[in-house]
């Protein structure tokens, strides 16, 4: 067991460093595609998976998937290295490394998959692996509950997504996304609205749009490296990725523009107010992630070059600064033992490198020139001004960005330069594996901003082209775009943000009061889950009574009703009973069977009933012999024999039938038995009345010897012509035997335990 192994075993550290190394190699592997993709080409690999269903493992690299792949592997490598230090000595660190690596691979598969079904499989794999990661501290019930909440919510959206994908694939005639997007917009085509709603349900739950947002802040129960990874470039961005990927096919309709604008804007503004309200820095960052997701969805509502460029630039810059800030908060938490914004302050002297990295990330987040964040904000304003719902989007974006500015101050400035409270530990600088990530990410945020042309050419513009579905003119990503309206809006943002930061303590109280008035969706979730469980319990009690007789009654009743309804509706006509041609022997066997049946019904002794049933069985075997089916007859006889043995063994442990002989045969049971008997007889007579179709018989007679080298046709059918059926049957025999074995042994064990207790 992992729990008992040495937590400091060297191979555990190796498992962390190793996965980080492999991920870094993958990053380098994807780097080589940068010039290819920037030149306007795409790369495609096809591996047939289930070709008969048109499901292939197709991987496709274009601008969008390459940007995501680089973020996933690049940030992934740094986060894994970070986690090796952060969780060093944790008894289950090896398990963590496995989860994180599996998650990275699933996410990579998701962004590279071109086949819709493959994409869905990877989509659900990220759901499962993130469930394991969020619930990593599985001893904590809150952590388990939050993990389950994330799982159920995103998996429910995933199911809607699957339905949407299947409809999309069937209506478009292909499951390859590259072909679907290449064939143009679906707007106005059949099922467009339904497909759109299903896809949006998947994307909005995954990317935590209001009102499905509440799982995301709860997912902070995970260790900080997980939050840094899941909430920067991966998991939650999967929904945004999907919307971007589907943009050429689904965008442009009024429905798309209105839904995405409104949900995105509401999420962004709501989340940025909530971010300001939190005092736990990790919670603050969680809500800023929500804000970023809302902003991205809002800009994907548009179809103009500026709107999409804004989305892609913001996506890139957000991934960089958010991962950096989460990692920084992790270092602070590690070093000081707290994440409380009210307590933290003045850490600059003790943690100079962390302070620098946090400053770089914070400046990018606040959108200060010359960081990439500034460019993202400029482009975003330009994009917002071009959008259909401009009057709505621009003010919402302004509020969100201003609040972001204030929150950047809270998470990146205040802990290092603000007044220091009482810290649980004396702060110290983090070790280099933990510092590497924030420093590199912060530097990149600055470098991309200083070299806008380069980052635009290699990363942003190829992604924009992929989302637009057509080559875009480019040249929008500039550090200095002249004196224009976006610049003015930026200046307003800074001013407003500064005021908000200065007053954030007062605002926090106000927001807390407003929050207390509003609906608590998180608590509502618990109530919903509880009611749902209660409902399933009632339902199970109703259907699964646990009484064998009732199950059999239900089975036979369904059989009787369906056969009866079919016979009546198909109007099969009369039944012909030709008894004239029966020989003396046949009459004898028939009487034997009837006598046996009557005896079973009348006797009060179990053994007598058993013997009488045996008579019925042997009668049937005799019929098989008379019609020269020796194989079937032998089997029938042997089975009959074994049934007697088994039942006799069972009877040893059972009480006698009602000794007075007056056991209650319920009227209902008798009716059912008689109807099933009559209906079966009618069906058999009707079948026999049809002219016998000899095609199969002729085939088997002709080929049994020539193709299968066997003269016993029954056996040849069993082991050659219909082997798969036989294989299925013996599998059933095995499963039934094992099932009965487990039941009997389990009952014996339970009884033994009970006796011991007494």
């Amino acid at each position, binding site marked *: 067991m992992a729990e008992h192994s040495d937590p400091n075993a060297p191979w555990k550290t190796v498992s962390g460093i190793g996965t980080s190394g492999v991920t870094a190699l993958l990053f380098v592997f994807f780097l080589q595609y940068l010039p290819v993709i920037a030149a306007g080409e795409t790369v495609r690999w096809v591996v047939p998976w289930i070709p008969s269903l048109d499901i292939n493992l197709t991987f496709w690299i274009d601008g969008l998937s390459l940007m995501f792949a680089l973020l996933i592997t690049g940030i992934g490598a740094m986060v894994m290295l970070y986690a090796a230090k952060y969780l060093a000595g944790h008894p289950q660190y090896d398990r963590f490394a496995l989860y994180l690596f599996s998650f990275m691979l699933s996410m990579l598969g998701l962004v590279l998959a071109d086949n819709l079904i493959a994409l869905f499989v990877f989509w659900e794999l990220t759901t499962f692996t993130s469930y394991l990661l969020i619930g990593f501290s599985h001893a904590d019930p809150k952590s388990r509950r939050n993990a389950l909440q994330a799982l159920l919510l995103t998996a429910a959206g995933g199911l809607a997504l699957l339905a949407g994908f299947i409809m999309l694939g069937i209506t478009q005639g292909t499951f390859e996304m590259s072909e679907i997007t290449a064939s143009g917009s679906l707007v106005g085509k059949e099922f467009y609205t339904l497909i759109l709603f299903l896809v949006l349900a998947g994307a909005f739950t995954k990317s935590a749009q209001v009102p499905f947002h509440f799982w995301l802040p709860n997912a902070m129960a995970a260790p900080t490296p997980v939050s840094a990874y899941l909430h920067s470039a991966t998991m939650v961005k999967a929904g945004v990725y999907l919307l971007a990927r589907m943009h050429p096919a689904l965008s442009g309709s009024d429905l798309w523009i209105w839904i995405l604008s409104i949900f995105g804007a509401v999420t962004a503004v709501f989340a940025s107010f909530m971010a300001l309200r939190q005092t736990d820095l990790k919670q603050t960052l969680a809500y800023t992630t929500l804000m970023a997701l809302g902003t991205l969805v809002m800009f994907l509502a548009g179809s103009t070059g500026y709107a999409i460029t804004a989305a892609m630039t913001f996506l890139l810059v957000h991934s960089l600064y958010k991962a950096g800030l989460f990692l920084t908060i992790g270092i602070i938490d590690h070093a000081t033992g707290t994440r409380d914004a009210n307590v933290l302050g003045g850490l600059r002297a003790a943690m100079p490198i962390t302070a620098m990295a946090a400053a770089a990330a914070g400046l990018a987040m606040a959108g200060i020139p010359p960081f990439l964040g500034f460019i993202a904000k400029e482009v975003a304003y330009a994009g917002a001004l071009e959008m259909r719902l401009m009057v709505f989007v621009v003010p919402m974006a302004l509020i969100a960005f201003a609040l972001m500015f204030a929150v950047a101050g809270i998470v990146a400035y205040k802990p290092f330069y603000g007044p220091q409270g009482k810290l649980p530990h004396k702060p110290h600088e983090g070790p280099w594996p933990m510092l590497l990530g924030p420093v590199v990410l912060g530097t990149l945020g600055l470098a991309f901003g200083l070299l806008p042309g380069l980052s635009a050419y290699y990363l942003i513009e190829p992604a924009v082209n992929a989302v637009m579905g057509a080559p875009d003119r480019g040249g929008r990503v500039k550090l200095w775009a002249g004196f224009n309206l976006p610049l003015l809006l930026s200046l307003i943002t800074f001013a407003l943000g500064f005021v908000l930061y200065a007053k954030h303590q007062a605002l926090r109280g106000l927001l807390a009061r407003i929050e207390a008035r509003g609906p608590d969706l998180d608590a509502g979730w618990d109530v919903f889950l509880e009611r749902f469980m209660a409902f399933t319990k009632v339902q199970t009690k109703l259907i699964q009574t646990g009484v064998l007789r009732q199950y059999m009654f239900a089975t036979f009743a369904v059989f009787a009703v369906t056969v009866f309804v079919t016979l009546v509706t198909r109007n099969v006509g009369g039944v012909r009973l030709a008894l004239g041609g029966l020989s003396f022997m046949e009459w004898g066997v028939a009487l034997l069977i009837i006598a046996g049946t009557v005896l079973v019904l009348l006797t009060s002794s179990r053994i007598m009933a058993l013997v009488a049933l045996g008579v019925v069985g042997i009668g049937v075997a005799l019929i098989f012999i008379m019609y020269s089916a*020796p*194989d079937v007859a*032998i*089997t029938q006889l*042997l*089975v009959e*024999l*074994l049934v007697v*043995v*088994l039942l006799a*063994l*069972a009877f040893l*442990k059972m009480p006698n039938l009602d000794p007075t002989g007056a056991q209650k045969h319920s009227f209902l049971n008798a009716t059912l038995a008689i109807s099933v008997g009559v209906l079966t007889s009618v069906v058999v007579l009707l079948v026999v009345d049809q002219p016998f179709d000899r095609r199969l018989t002729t085939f088997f007679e002709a080929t049994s010897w020539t193709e*299968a*080298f*066997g*003269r*016993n046709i*029954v*056996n*040849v059918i*069993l*082991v*050659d012509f219909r*082997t*798969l059926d*036989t*294989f299925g049957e*013996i*599998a059933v*025999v*095995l499963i*039934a*035997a*094992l099932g*009965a*074995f487990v039941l*009997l*042994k389990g*009952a*014996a064990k339970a009884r033994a335990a009970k006796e011991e207790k007494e």
Partner: protein
Amino acid sequence: MNSIIFTAAARLLVALLFVFSLFMLLRGHHLPGGGFIGGLIGAVAFIVYSLACGPAEARKALRITPEVIAMLGLGIALLAGMFSFFMGDPFFTGQWYWVGGDSYDTAAFSVNTVLVFDIGVYLVVLGGILSLTYAFEEET
């Protein structure tokens, strides 16, 4: 069952039944018989033995637990079916090899996957039924 006559007769009967079950298994391709019937007869043999000498003794005589026998049988049947896969034929296509000749009529005997599959069926039926019966008998 404490009957000396039954116990003594059972020993003889078990051996005969068991040999008969193998005989039925092997002749199944041309005459009535086969893995299913053979397995049933084999199970009857061991059930007779367990009725005569008790399930503990019968288990000892069987040497391998019946559940394992059944699972082995399913595995053998699956392997027999997968063999054709490696030969480039569709799943479960019978593979025939002639020894001492080049067709069914001239060869001394044949080696084929169909019989291997039937042996798998035999083992599943034998093991499955015995596992059920023994569990019943031991349930006190």
